[in-house]
């Protein structure tokens, strides 16, 4: 070799020539690329699975700690707030009403008189379902003075409503009673009807 520079140049040429002759095929390169893409896809699925598992846990957690629904809370039964409790049921196949009056320290006579007057006339009024269980339906009248406890057996005589599916807590009902204070009809009110005052 004439000098180091030429020698280095010749080495480089020899090296590059071999590289060009014995390189990786296009297929090999594609295979490498495919393998490099693969772990990322797995990672995506891993992350997706983690995300779904976390979402599931959060959902279960939310169900677990969720307080009673707002509706349940809003219309929870509180016997102390009613002046009268009317139990409508059947005894020996006959419709009977039992009325329990709360003893109030002030104006007891006025309240009793008022309620007696109401019972003495046929009327239509609105009420809201407070509870619906297997035995009876609890309805508060719209002024929240009277709580109606209506046995399910009687209810099926008064109305053709679907007692299990249709009557939910908080739902408004239209009730009609006769001069004896016995309920004669009971129907649901459409939400869009908008009840602003008691009839």
């Amino acid at each position, binding site marked *: *070799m004439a000098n*180091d520079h030429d*020698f280095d140049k*010749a*080495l*480089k*040429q*020899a*090296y*590059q*020539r*071999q*590289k060009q002759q*014995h*390189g*990786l095929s296009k297929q*090999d*390169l594609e*295979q*490498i*690329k495919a*393998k*490099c*893409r693969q*772990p*990322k896809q797995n990672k995506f699925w891993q992350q997706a699975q983690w995300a779904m598992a976390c979402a599931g846990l959060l959902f279960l957690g939310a169900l677990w700690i969720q307080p009673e629904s707002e509706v349940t809370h809003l219309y929870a039964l509180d016997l102390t707030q009613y002046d009268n409790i009317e139990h409508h049921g059947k005894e020996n196949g006959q419709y009977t009403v039992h009325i329990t009056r709360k003893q109030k320290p002030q104006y007891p006579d006025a309240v009793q008189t008022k309620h007696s007057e109401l019972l003495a006339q046929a009327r239509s009024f609105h009420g809201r379902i407070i509870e619906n269980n297997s035995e009876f339906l609890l309805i508060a009248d719209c002024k929240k003075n009277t709580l109606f406890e209506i046995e399910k057996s009687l209810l099926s005589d008064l109305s053709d409503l679907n007692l299990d599916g249709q009557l939910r807590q908080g739902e408004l009902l239209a009730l009609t009673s006769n001069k004896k204070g016995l309920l004669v009809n009971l129907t649901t009110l459409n939400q869009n009807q908008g009840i602003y005052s008691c009839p």
Partner: protein
Amino acid sequence: MLIALKTWLHKVSPSRDPLEAYQQTGEDVYIEILINTYSQDLFHFLKGQSDGVLAQDICQKTWLTVVEKRHLYRNQQTPKAWLFSIARNALLDEFKKQNRLCSLDEQFHEAASEDKIENKADVMYEAIIALPFLQREALSLQLEGFSLQEIATITNSETETIKTRLRYAKQTLKQRLGDNHGK
């Protein structure tokens, strides 16, 4: 439309380090650019230090390591130097597994082919391949275009050590090829 064009230009801009871009975005397009750009160099270097099958295996491992550990890349290094560092470490690990690391300095490459080598360049390459491992490694890296400092970083050695290895490698080659190439 303009934003899309700008993004596309930014992606394909040759001035942008694709490894840095891959580190930041993780998009497949960048790893594919890197594979297209450096795989042949990497494979050839590895093949010179081992054999075709092992070289291909290590080459693949190197790219998978890049995918996995791209966050470790620091752009003070060139992407090529970083890739070669990973490849060299993977190769040495493989040698350890195969108990071939005990005498790196004494390790010689087996002749790739028993066919009669007539071409002058091929003879020269066979002479490079016949060098001891560390000399061959230093020379191969220099022929790949790395500076002395980069070779020292890739091989975890001192620059002076690399200079010595290169000097010995070239002396040996000149002795072996001297007469033939002097003609």
